[in-house]
Protein backbone atom coordinates (compact mmCIF):
# COMPACT_ATOMS: atom_id res chain seq x y z
CA UNK A 1 0.00 0.00 0.00
CA UNK A 2 1.27 3.45 -0.76
CA UNK A 3 -0.03 6.59 0.79
CA UNK A 4 1.43 9.71 -0.68
CA UNK A 5 0.64 13.35 -0.22
CA UNK A 6 0.29 14.87 -3.65
CA UNK A 7 1.68 18.31 -4.35
CA UNK A 8 -1.22 20.70 -4.60
CA UNK A 9 -1.30 22.70 -7.82
CA UNK A 10 -2.83 26.18 -7.64
CA UNK A 11 -6.55 25.55 -7.11
CA UNK A 12 -8.93 27.94 -8.87
CA UNK A 13 -11.65 29.56 -6.78
CA UNK A 14 -15.41 29.42 -7.16
CA UNK A 15 -17.78 32.11 -5.93
CA UNK A 16 -20.74 31.26 -3.74
CA UNK A 17 -23.52 33.60 -2.73
CA UNK A 18 -24.12 33.06 0.98
CA UNK A 19 -27.01 35.15 2.36
CA UNK A 20 -26.44 37.70 -0.44
CA UNK A 21 -22.70 37.95 0.26
CA UNK A 22 -20.14 36.80 -2.26
CA UNK A 23 -17.78 34.21 -0.74
CA UNK A 24 -14.86 32.86 -2.71
CA UNK A 25 -13.62 29.35 -1.88
CA UNK A 26 -11.14 26.94 -3.48
CA UNK A 27 -12.74 24.78 -6.14
CA UNK A 28 -13.74 21.40 -4.69
CA UNK A 29 -14.62 22.83 -1.25
CA UNK A 30 -17.69 21.55 0.49
CA UNK A 31 -20.29 24.20 1.28
CA UNK A 32 -20.30 23.45 5.05
CA UNK A 33 -16.54 24.11 5.22
CA UNK A 34 -17.06 27.47 3.50
CA UNK A 35 -19.80 28.34 6.01
CA UNK A 36 -17.71 27.28 9.00
CA UNK A 37 -14.69 29.24 7.79
CA UNK A 38 -16.69 32.44 7.35
CA UNK A 39 -18.11 31.99 10.88
CA UNK A 40 -21.69 32.26 9.63
CA UNK A 41 -24.07 30.27 11.83
CA UNK A 42 -25.74 27.70 9.62
CA UNK A 43 -28.87 27.57 11.68
CA UNK A 44 -30.43 28.95 14.80
CA UNK A 45 -31.46 26.21 17.19
CA UNK A 46 -34.99 26.00 18.58
CA UNK A 47 -33.84 27.91 21.69
CA UNK A 48 -31.91 30.49 19.66
CA UNK A 49 -28.32 29.20 19.75
CA UNK A 50 -26.19 29.71 16.64
CA UNK A 51 -25.03 26.35 15.31
CA UNK A 52 -22.38 25.07 12.95
CA UNK A 53 -21.54 21.66 11.55
CA UNK A 54 -20.86 18.75 13.93
CA UNK A 55 -20.42 15.43 12.15
CA UNK A 56 -19.58 16.49 8.58
CA UNK A 57 -20.84 13.14 7.33
CA UNK A 58 -24.52 13.74 6.71
CA UNK A 59 -25.81 12.43 10.03
CA UNK A 60 -26.39 15.33 12.45
CA UNK A 61 -28.32 17.69 10.13
CA UNK A 62 -26.76 20.72 11.88
CA UNK A 63 -25.43 21.97 8.54
CA UNK A 64 -28.76 21.87 6.69
CA UNK A 65 -29.44 25.05 4.69
CA UNK A 66 -31.30 26.21 1.59
CA UNK A 67 -29.15 25.56 -1.50
CA UNK A 68 -30.31 26.96 -4.85
CA UNK A 69 -33.84 27.14 -3.46
CA UNK A 70 -33.91 23.54 -2.18
CA UNK A 71 -34.61 23.48 1.58
CA UNK A 72 -32.88 21.27 4.19
CA UNK A 73 -29.85 20.39 2.09
CA UNK A 74 -27.00 18.93 4.16
CA UNK A 75 -24.25 21.33 3.11
CA UNK A 76 -21.51 18.87 4.15
CA UNK A 77 -22.70 16.73 1.21
CA UNK A 78 -22.50 19.48 -1.37
CA UNK A 79 -19.49 20.67 -3.34
CA UNK A 80 -19.46 24.42 -3.96
CA UNK A 81 -20.32 25.44 -7.53
CA UNK A 82 -19.84 28.79 -9.23
CA UNK A 83 -22.84 31.02 -8.47
CA UNK A 84 -24.44 28.60 -5.99
CA UNK A 85 -26.92 30.36 -3.70
CA UNK A 86 -26.90 29.37 -0.03
CA UNK A 87 -29.35 30.73 2.52
CA UNK A 88 -28.77 29.86 6.19
CA UNK A 89 -31.44 29.70 8.88
Amino acid at each position, binding site marked *: *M*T*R*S*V*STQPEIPNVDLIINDHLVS*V*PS*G*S*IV*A*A*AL*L*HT*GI*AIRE*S*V*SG*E*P*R*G*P*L*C*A*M*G*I*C*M*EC*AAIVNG*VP*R*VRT*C*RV*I*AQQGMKVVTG
Partner: protein
Amino acid sequence: MRIFDVVVVGAGPAGMAAASAAARHGASVCLIDDNAKPGGQIWRGNDIYRDDRFTGLQEALSDSGVVLRGESSVVAHPAAKVLRIETLTGFEDIGYRRIIIATGARERFLPFPGWTLQGVMGVGGLQAMVKGGLPIEGKRVVLSGSGPLLLAVAAALATKGARILGIFEQASAARVINFGVQLLRFPGKLRDGAVYRAAARRAPYRTGAWIIEAHGDRLLQSVTVSTNGVVRTIECDYLGYGFHLVPNLELPRLLQCQIRSGYVDVSETQGTSVPGVYCAGESTGVGGLEKALCEGEIAGLICAGQSGSHLYKRRDRQARFAKHLDRAFAPRPELKKLVTPDTFVCRCEDVPRRALDAMHSWREAKLQTRCGMGPCQGRICGPATEFLFGWNSEHARPPVLPARVSTIACPVEVSRDTV
Protein backbone atom coordinates in the same frame (compact mmCIF):
# COMPACT_ATOMS: atom_id res chain seq x y z
CA MET B 1 -38.52 0.50 -11.69
CA ARG B 2 -35.16 -1.13 -12.27
CA ILE B 3 -34.48 -4.35 -10.45
CA PHE B 4 -30.93 -5.42 -9.75
CA ASP B 5 -29.53 -8.79 -8.71
CA VAL B 6 -27.65 -7.01 -5.95
CA VAL B 7 -28.14 -3.57 -4.42
CA VAL B 8 -25.35 -2.32 -2.18
CA VAL B 9 -26.07 0.55 0.20
CA GLY B 10 -22.99 2.51 1.19
CA ALA B 11 -20.00 3.08 -1.08
CA GLY B 12 -17.22 2.97 1.48
CA PRO B 13 -14.58 0.22 1.42
CA ALA B 14 -17.07 -2.56 2.33
CA GLY B 15 -19.66 -1.44 -0.23
CA MET B 16 -17.10 -0.91 -2.99
CA ALA B 17 -15.56 -4.34 -2.36
CA ALA B 18 -19.02 -5.95 -2.29
CA ALA B 19 -20.24 -4.27 -5.48
CA SER B 20 -17.10 -5.05 -7.41
CA ALA B 21 -17.01 -8.71 -6.27
CA ALA B 22 -20.66 -9.29 -7.20
CA ALA B 23 -20.32 -7.54 -10.57
CA ARG B 24 -17.14 -9.46 -11.39
CA HIS B 25 -19.19 -12.65 -11.22
CA GLY B 26 -21.91 -11.45 -13.52
CA ALA B 27 -24.50 -9.95 -11.16
CA SER B 28 -26.25 -6.72 -12.09
CA VAL B 29 -25.34 -4.32 -9.29
CA CYS B 30 -26.48 -0.92 -8.09
CA LEU B 31 -24.32 0.94 -5.55
CA ILE B 32 -26.07 3.70 -3.59
CA ASP B 33 -24.39 6.40 -1.47
CA ASP B 34 -25.18 9.69 0.19
CA ASN B 35 -22.05 11.22 -1.25
CA ALA B 36 -21.40 12.26 -4.81
CA LYS B 37 -18.49 9.84 -5.18
CA PRO B 38 -17.57 6.42 -3.79
CA GLY B 39 -14.92 6.17 -1.07
CA GLY B 40 -16.85 6.56 2.17
CA GLN B 41 -15.50 8.50 5.11
CA ILE B 42 -12.04 6.97 5.05
CA TRP B 43 -11.32 7.59 1.38
CA ARG B 44 -13.07 10.92 1.13
CA GLY B 45 -11.00 13.58 -0.56
CA ASN B 46 -9.00 10.93 -2.39
CA ASP B 47 -7.05 13.59 -4.24
CA ILE B 48 -5.09 14.22 -1.02
CA TYR B 49 -4.42 10.70 0.24
CA ARG B 50 -3.82 8.00 -2.28
CA ASP B 51 -4.40 4.43 -1.34
CA ASP B 52 -3.78 1.79 -4.00
CA ARG B 53 -6.67 -0.28 -2.70
CA PHE B 54 -9.02 2.63 -3.32
CA THR B 55 -7.79 3.31 -6.84
CA GLY B 56 -7.96 -0.43 -7.54
CA LEU B 57 -11.59 -0.63 -6.44
CA GLN B 58 -12.46 2.56 -8.33
CA GLU B 59 -11.10 1.05 -11.52
CA ALA B 60 -12.83 -2.27 -10.86
CA LEU B 61 -16.14 -0.47 -10.41
CA SER B 62 -15.87 1.65 -13.53
CA ASP B 63 -14.95 -1.41 -15.63
CA SER B 64 -17.66 -3.62 -14.20
CA GLY B 65 -20.87 -1.88 -15.23
CA VAL B 66 -21.97 -1.25 -11.62
CA VAL B 67 -24.69 1.40 -11.66
CA LEU B 68 -23.75 4.18 -9.23
CA ARG B 69 -26.37 6.27 -7.48
CA GLY B 70 -24.52 9.10 -5.74
CA GLU B 71 -26.05 11.90 -3.66
CA SER B 72 -28.85 9.46 -2.92
CA SER B 73 -30.23 8.66 0.53
CA VAL B 74 -32.30 5.60 1.32
CA VAL B 75 -35.38 6.94 3.09
CA ALA B 76 -37.81 4.04 3.07
CA HIS B 77 -38.54 0.43 2.17
CA PRO B 78 -41.98 0.93 0.63
CA ALA B 79 -42.52 -2.67 -0.51
CA ALA B 80 -40.81 -6.03 -0.26
CA LYS B 81 -37.38 -5.86 -1.93
CA VAL B 82 -37.76 -2.21 -2.92
CA LEU B 83 -35.78 0.77 -1.62
CA ARG B 84 -36.90 4.34 -2.05
CA ILE B 85 -34.01 6.74 -2.47
CA GLU B 86 -34.22 10.52 -2.37
CA THR B 87 -31.91 12.71 -4.41
CA LEU B 88 -31.44 16.49 -4.39
CA THR B 89 -34.18 16.88 -6.95
CA GLY B 90 -36.46 13.86 -6.72
CA PHE B 91 -36.75 10.21 -5.74
CA GLU B 92 -36.48 6.77 -7.25
CA ASP B 93 -37.53 3.23 -6.36
CA ILE B 94 -34.90 0.55 -6.81
CA GLY B 95 -35.71 -3.15 -6.67
CA TYR B 96 -33.31 -5.86 -5.52
CA ARG B 97 -33.04 -9.61 -5.33
CA ARG B 98 -30.35 -9.41 -2.68
CA ILE B 99 -29.18 -6.42 -0.68
CA ILE B 100 -25.86 -5.72 1.04
CA ILE B 101 -25.94 -3.14 3.81
CA ALA B 102 -22.59 -1.37 4.12
CA THR B 103 -23.66 1.83 5.83
CA GLY B 104 -20.62 2.09 8.09
CA ALA B 105 -20.37 3.87 11.40
CA ARG B 106 -20.58 7.33 12.84
CA GLU B 107 -18.84 9.00 15.75
CA ARG B 108 -20.30 8.62 19.21
CA PHE B 109 -20.99 12.07 20.60
CA LEU B 110 -21.49 12.46 24.33
CA PRO B 111 -22.85 15.78 25.61
CA PHE B 112 -20.89 18.13 27.87
CA PRO B 113 -21.31 21.84 28.64
CA GLY B 114 -20.46 23.86 25.52
CA TRP B 115 -20.64 21.02 22.99
CA THR B 116 -23.10 22.96 20.84
CA LEU B 117 -20.69 25.87 20.20
CA GLN B 118 -19.59 26.48 16.62
CA GLY B 119 -16.09 25.07 16.24
CA VAL B 120 -16.79 21.95 18.31
CA MET B 121 -16.93 19.07 15.87
CA GLY B 122 -16.40 15.38 15.49
CA VAL B 123 -12.80 14.19 15.25
CA GLY B 124 -13.52 12.64 11.88
CA GLY B 125 -15.87 15.56 11.26
CA LEU B 126 -13.04 18.06 11.58
CA GLN B 127 -10.87 15.96 9.29
CA ALA B 128 -13.68 15.75 6.74
CA MET B 129 -14.06 19.54 6.90
CA VAL B 130 -10.34 19.98 6.27
CA LYS B 131 -10.48 17.54 3.37
CA GLY B 132 -13.44 19.61 2.18
CA GLY B 133 -11.46 22.82 2.05
CA LEU B 134 -11.52 24.24 5.60
CA PRO B 135 -8.22 26.14 6.04
CA ILE B 136 -6.39 24.63 9.03
CA GLU B 137 -2.83 25.87 8.67
CA GLY B 138 -1.74 27.59 11.89
CA LYS B 139 -5.08 26.90 13.60
CA ARG B 140 -5.03 25.77 17.23
CA VAL B 141 -6.69 22.37 17.47
CA VAL B 142 -7.54 20.20 20.48
CA LEU B 143 -8.57 16.58 19.92
CA SER B 144 -10.41 14.63 22.55
CA GLY B 145 -12.59 11.60 23.12
CA SER B 146 -11.54 8.04 22.53
CA GLY B 147 -10.12 5.66 19.99
CA PRO B 148 -7.44 5.36 17.34
CA LEU B 149 -9.14 8.00 15.20
CA LEU B 150 -7.70 10.67 17.53
CA LEU B 151 -4.16 9.81 16.49
CA ALA B 152 -4.98 9.32 12.83
CA VAL B 153 -6.66 12.73 12.62
CA ALA B 154 -3.90 14.43 14.65
CA ALA B 155 -1.42 13.11 12.11
CA ALA B 156 -3.48 14.24 9.13
CA LEU B 157 -4.09 17.73 10.50
CA ALA B 158 -0.49 18.20 11.67
CA THR B 159 0.65 17.34 8.15
CA LYS B 160 -1.55 20.18 6.90
CA GLY B 161 -0.01 22.68 9.31
CA ALA B 162 -2.49 22.63 12.20
CA ARG B 163 -1.12 23.26 15.69
CA ILE B 164 -2.30 20.23 17.67
CA LEU B 165 -2.30 21.50 21.27
CA GLY B 166 -3.25 18.19 22.81
CA ILE B 167 -4.74 14.75 22.23
CA PHE B 168 -6.88 13.75 25.20
CA GLU B 169 -7.90 10.10 25.40
CA GLN B 170 -10.49 9.23 28.04
CA ALA B 171 -9.39 5.62 28.35
CA SER B 172 -6.97 4.91 31.19
CA ALA B 173 -3.26 4.39 30.55
CA ALA B 174 -3.70 0.76 31.57
CA ARG B 175 -6.37 0.16 28.92
CA VAL B 176 -4.42 1.93 26.21
CA ILE B 177 -1.26 -0.02 27.06
CA ASN B 178 -3.19 -3.28 27.08
CA PHE B 179 -4.63 -2.38 23.69
CA GLY B 180 -1.09 -1.65 22.46
CA VAL B 181 -0.02 -5.12 23.61
CA GLN B 182 -2.93 -6.69 21.71
CA LEU B 183 -1.79 -4.73 18.66
CA LEU B 184 1.40 -6.78 18.58
CA ARG B 185 -0.75 -9.49 16.99
CA PHE B 186 -1.83 -7.08 14.26
CA PRO B 187 1.43 -5.75 12.78
CA GLY B 188 -0.35 -3.70 10.10
CA LYS B 189 -2.36 -1.80 12.73
CA LEU B 190 0.74 -1.31 14.85
CA ARG B 191 2.56 0.17 11.87
CA ASP B 192 -0.34 2.55 11.15
CA GLY B 193 -0.28 3.66 14.80
CA ALA B 194 3.45 4.33 14.72
CA VAL B 195 3.12 6.36 11.50
CA TYR B 196 0.33 8.47 13.01
CA ARG B 197 2.22 9.07 16.24
CA ALA B 198 5.33 10.13 14.32
CA ALA B 199 3.38 12.63 12.20
CA ALA B 200 1.84 14.22 15.29
CA ARG B 201 4.91 13.80 17.51
CA ARG B 202 4.85 17.34 18.87
CA ALA B 203 1.32 16.99 20.18
CA PRO B 204 1.01 15.87 23.79
CA TYR B 205 -0.97 12.62 24.11
CA ARG B 206 -2.67 12.14 27.48
CA THR B 207 -4.69 9.20 28.73
CA GLY B 208 -7.31 9.41 31.47
CA ALA B 209 -8.10 12.86 30.08
CA TRP B 210 -11.25 14.47 28.77
CA ILE B 211 -12.88 17.84 28.09
CA ILE B 212 -15.13 18.98 30.92
CA GLU B 213 -16.34 22.20 29.30
CA ALA B 214 -16.02 24.22 26.10
CA HIS B 215 -16.20 28.00 26.36
CA GLY B 216 -17.00 30.76 23.89
CA ASP B 217 -19.53 33.28 22.75
CA ARG B 218 -21.10 31.86 19.58
CA LEU B 219 -17.69 30.54 18.50
CA LEU B 220 -15.44 28.19 20.47
CA GLN B 221 -12.66 30.03 22.31
CA SER B 222 -11.25 27.55 24.81
CA VAL B 223 -11.73 24.18 26.45
CA THR B 224 -11.22 23.01 30.01
CA VAL B 225 -9.49 19.64 30.21
CA SER B 226 -9.19 17.23 33.09
CA THR B 227 -6.08 15.05 32.96
CA ASN B 228 -6.04 12.43 35.71
CA GLY B 229 -7.93 14.92 37.84
CA VAL B 230 -5.74 17.97 37.08
CA VAL B 231 -7.79 20.70 35.40
CA ARG B 232 -6.55 23.35 32.98
CA THR B 233 -7.93 25.57 30.23
CA ILE B 234 -6.56 25.70 26.68
CA GLU B 235 -7.39 28.39 24.12
CA CYS B 236 -8.16 26.91 20.73
CA ASP B 237 -9.91 27.47 17.40
CA TYR B 238 -11.32 23.98 16.93
CA LEU B 239 -12.14 21.04 19.15
CA GLY B 240 -12.43 17.70 17.40
CA TYR B 241 -14.10 15.20 19.72
CA GLY B 242 -15.78 11.84 19.53
CA PHE B 243 -15.91 8.67 21.58
CA HIS B 244 -14.93 5.92 19.18
CA LEU B 245 -17.59 4.90 16.64
CA VAL B 246 -21.10 3.49 16.67
CA PRO B 247 -22.62 1.60 13.71
CA ASN B 248 -25.31 3.10 11.50
CA LEU B 249 -28.17 0.71 12.20
CA GLU B 250 -31.12 2.63 10.73
CA LEU B 251 -31.35 0.60 7.51
CA PRO B 252 -30.79 -2.84 9.10
CA ARG B 253 -33.43 -1.93 11.69
CA LEU B 254 -35.81 -0.79 8.96
CA LEU B 255 -35.33 -4.16 7.25
CA GLN B 256 -35.86 -5.87 10.65
CA CYS B 257 -32.44 -7.45 10.86
CA GLN B 258 -31.54 -8.86 14.25
CA ILE B 259 -29.16 -6.67 16.26
CA ARG B 260 -26.95 -8.28 18.89
CA SER B 261 -24.75 -6.37 21.38
CA GLY B 262 -25.13 -3.20 19.36
CA TYR B 263 -24.19 -4.64 15.96
CA VAL B 264 -25.95 -6.41 13.10
CA ASP B 265 -25.88 -10.14 13.77
CA VAL B 266 -24.39 -11.94 10.76
CA SER B 267 -23.59 -15.51 9.80
CA GLU B 268 -20.24 -16.59 8.36
CA THR B 269 -21.49 -15.63 4.89
CA GLN B 270 -22.34 -12.09 6.15
CA GLY B 271 -26.04 -12.98 5.98
CA THR B 272 -28.35 -11.26 8.47
CA SER B 273 -31.37 -12.83 10.17
CA VAL B 274 -33.47 -11.74 7.14
CA PRO B 275 -33.09 -13.93 4.02
CA GLY B 276 -31.52 -12.04 1.12
CA VAL B 277 -30.20 -9.28 3.37
CA TYR B 278 -26.44 -9.16 3.97
CA CYS B 279 -24.29 -6.81 5.98
CA ALA B 280 -20.60 -5.90 5.73
CA GLY B 281 -18.20 -3.47 7.37
CA GLU B 282 -18.55 -1.39 10.52
CA SER B 283 -22.25 -2.24 11.04
CA THR B 284 -21.23 -5.76 12.10
CA GLY B 285 -18.43 -4.53 14.39
CA VAL B 286 -16.19 -1.47 14.25
CA GLY B 287 -12.89 -2.90 13.06
CA GLY B 288 -11.60 -0.64 10.33
CA LEU B 289 -10.55 -0.89 6.72
CA GLU B 290 -9.26 -4.47 6.37
CA LYS B 291 -12.32 -5.93 8.06
CA ALA B 292 -14.62 -3.87 5.84
CA LEU B 293 -12.84 -4.87 2.62
CA CYS B 294 -12.84 -8.53 3.59
CA GLU B 295 -16.50 -8.66 4.65
CA GLY B 296 -17.56 -6.70 1.58
CA GLU B 297 -15.76 -9.12 -0.70
CA ILE B 298 -17.38 -12.11 1.04
CA ALA B 299 -20.88 -10.61 0.85
CA GLY B 300 -20.41 -9.69 -2.82
CA LEU B 301 -19.19 -13.18 -3.71
CA ILE B 302 -22.04 -14.89 -1.84
CA CYS B 303 -24.66 -12.67 -3.48
CA ALA B 304 -23.25 -13.60 -6.88
CA GLY B 305 -23.53 -17.32 -6.04
CA GLN B 306 -19.82 -17.83 -5.31
CA SER B 307 -17.98 -19.06 -2.24
CA GLY B 308 -16.20 -16.68 0.10
CA SER B 309 -14.80 -19.32 2.45
CA HIS B 310 -11.16 -18.58 1.54
CA LEU B 311 -11.61 -15.22 3.28
CA TYR B 312 -13.24 -16.37 6.52
CA LYS B 313 -10.02 -16.76 8.49
CA ARG B 314 -8.81 -13.28 7.59
CA ARG B 315 -12.23 -11.83 8.37
CA ASP B 316 -12.46 -13.55 11.77
CA ARG B 317 -9.06 -12.17 12.73
CA GLN B 318 -10.19 -8.63 11.92
CA ALA B 319 -13.42 -9.20 13.84
CA ARG B 320 -11.33 -10.04 16.91
CA PHE B 321 -9.53 -6.72 16.48
CA ALA B 322 -12.93 -4.99 16.52
CA LYS B 323 -13.67 -6.52 19.93
CA HIS B 324 -10.34 -5.28 21.31
CA LEU B 325 -11.22 -1.78 20.10
CA ASP B 326 -14.64 -1.80 21.75
CA ARG B 327 -13.19 -2.96 25.06
CA ALA B 328 -10.28 -0.55 25.13
CA PHE B 329 -12.20 2.57 24.15
CA ALA B 330 -15.56 2.09 25.88
CA PRO B 331 -16.56 5.42 27.47
CA ARG B 332 -15.94 5.54 31.23
CA PRO B 333 -18.87 6.20 33.61
CA GLU B 334 -17.34 9.47 34.91
CA LEU B 335 -18.27 11.08 31.59
CA LYS B 336 -21.93 10.91 32.59
CA LYS B 337 -21.29 13.39 35.39
CA LEU B 338 -20.19 16.10 32.95
CA VAL B 339 -23.76 16.58 31.78
CA THR B 340 -25.32 19.34 33.92
CA PRO B 341 -29.11 19.74 34.23
CA ASP B 342 -28.93 22.55 31.64
CA THR B 343 -26.73 20.76 29.12
CA PHE B 344 -28.62 19.95 25.93
CA VAL B 345 -28.65 16.22 25.31
CA CYS B 346 -30.73 16.42 22.12
CA ARG B 347 -29.33 19.24 20.04
CA CYS B 348 -32.00 19.12 17.32
CA GLU B 349 -34.76 19.92 19.80
CA ASP B 350 -32.61 21.54 22.55
CA VAL B 351 -33.75 19.10 25.23
CA PRO B 352 -31.71 19.56 28.44
CA ARG B 353 -30.79 16.69 30.74
CA ARG B 354 -33.17 18.08 33.36
CA ALA B 355 -36.13 17.22 31.14
CA LEU B 356 -34.89 13.66 30.67
CA ASP B 357 -34.08 12.73 34.25
CA ALA B 358 -37.67 11.72 35.01
CA MET B 359 -38.07 9.61 31.86
CA HIS B 360 -37.86 5.83 31.90
CA SER B 361 -37.34 4.94 28.25
CA TRP B 362 -36.32 6.29 24.85
CA ARG B 363 -39.94 6.07 23.76
CA GLU B 364 -41.24 8.01 26.75
CA ALA B 365 -38.52 10.64 26.27
CA LYS B 366 -39.50 11.04 22.61
CA LEU B 367 -43.19 11.42 23.39
CA GLN B 368 -42.81 13.69 26.43
CA THR B 369 -39.78 15.84 25.59
CA ARG B 370 -39.25 15.56 21.79
CA CYS B 371 -35.77 14.15 22.47
CA GLY B 372 -34.70 12.34 19.30
CA MET B 373 -37.64 13.71 17.30
CA GLY B 374 -35.70 16.36 15.36
CA PRO B 375 -34.09 16.25 11.92
CA CYS B 376 -31.33 13.78 12.88
CA GLN B 377 -33.97 11.34 14.16
CA GLY B 378 -31.95 10.43 17.23
CA ARG B 379 -28.76 9.62 15.36
CA ILE B 380 -26.74 11.88 17.67
CA CYS B 381 -28.68 11.76 20.96
CA GLY B 382 -29.61 8.07 20.64
CA PRO B 383 -26.12 6.73 21.44
CA ALA B 384 -25.77 9.52 24.05
CA THR B 385 -28.96 8.55 25.90
CA GLU B 386 -28.00 4.89 25.64
CA PHE B 387 -24.79 5.75 27.48
CA LEU B 388 -26.36 8.21 29.95
CA PHE B 389 -29.60 6.40 30.78
CA GLY B 390 -29.23 2.92 29.31
CA TRP B 391 -32.07 3.49 26.84
CA ASN B 392 -32.27 1.42 23.74
CA SER B 393 -33.70 2.68 20.46
CA GLU B 394 -34.78 -0.50 18.79
CA HIS B 395 -37.08 0.52 16.00
CA ALA B 396 -36.59 2.50 12.85
CA ARG B 397 -39.62 3.85 11.09
CA PRO B 398 -39.75 5.28 7.60
CA PRO B 399 -38.70 7.82 6.56
CA VAL B 400 -35.37 7.13 8.27
CA LEU B 401 -34.19 10.58 7.21
CA PRO B 402 -36.26 13.75 6.81
CA ALA B 403 -37.75 13.45 3.33
CA ARG B 404 -39.93 15.58 1.12
CA VAL B 405 -43.68 14.89 1.23
CA SER B 406 -43.60 14.12 -2.51
CA THR B 407 -41.05 11.40 -1.81
CA ILE B 408 -43.12 9.71 0.87
CA ALA B 409 -46.57 10.16 -0.62
CA CYS B 410 -46.04 8.46 -3.98
CA PRO B 411 -47.12 4.80 -4.23
CA VAL B 412 -44.68 2.11 -5.33
CA GLU B 413 -44.67 1.13 -8.94
CA VAL B 414 -46.14 -2.36 -9.04
CA SER B 415 -43.90 -4.98 -10.52
CA ARG B 416 -44.20 -8.74 -10.37
CA ASP B 417 -40.45 -9.11 -10.42
CA THR B 418 -40.00 -7.57 -7.02
CA VAL B 419 -41.72 -10.32 -5.10
